[in-house]
């Protein structure tokens, strides 16, 4: 349960777990990089907490990606599907 009422109509999805896995980064390491508790990264990944704009920018800076590559209003398609579809395979 999150202490904040989350929008059911406009949820925020993120790719944190995939991006961490790609870079071999633990939750603790990402948490350390953006100066939050590791449990907050877990809550973000589970969708129990939506990040502030400041935290979202800090996370994007760690992965060197734009915000729309990490957070979205729509569910992300799996990266492998996206890569192979765009590659024409």
């Amino acid at each position, binding site marked *: 349960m999150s202490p904040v009422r989350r929008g059911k109509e406009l949820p925020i999805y993120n790719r944190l777990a995939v991006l961490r896995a790609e870079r071999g980064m*633990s939750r603790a*390491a990402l948490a350390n990089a953006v100066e939050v*508790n590791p449990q907050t990264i*877990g809550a973000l990944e589970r969708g129990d907490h939506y990040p502030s704009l400041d935290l979202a920018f800090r996370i994007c800076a760690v992965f060197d990606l734009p915000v729309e590559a990490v957070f979205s209003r729509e569910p992300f398609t799996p990266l492998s599907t996206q890569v192979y579809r765009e590659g024409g395979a």
Partner: protein
Amino acid sequence: MTEKPSRLAAYWERQLDKLDELERRRAAKLPSWRTRRRRRRLALLLGAADLGLVAAAAIFKTAPAWTFFVLWFAVFAVGGVAFGLLRILTGRMNGGFSRLLDEREREWRHRITFVGYQVLIFLMIVAMFYAMAVADRPEGGWRAAMMLSALLVTGTTIPSIVLGWALPDDDPEDFEEGMDHD
């Protein structure tokens, strides 16, 4: 003139660092107890101890003195242990300074302190009516004071009870350090 504030600020920073270290050590304690089920049991135990305190205050000066003292100190001991354990198991959101919390923890802190504040207001109104009800009875002042104490203690434990009840199970992955293979 400028030295004093900077010394004070440096002292405050050192204190925050110490508190941060203390909270880190606490976060590693009782790992097998960090489940929602255990936290909820402790929250219920603390709530029961609060009710025991109120019951003891209600019989103060009307029942034999030993009955009051046995009940009062027994529930104080049980409640104290439950409160201490919940304090450890719920982490810095329950007691640390706001500066040590991140945004998610601050949201939790805001929620539990607001609920605690609302419940405390209600309990103080109950204490006020109780004081009016016993005002003209023998030892009315003592009885009102004891009930006020019991309800005040109850109100101050509400944030811990709410947090202990609402926090989910800890996710073991949150505490894994490894994974780096670059």
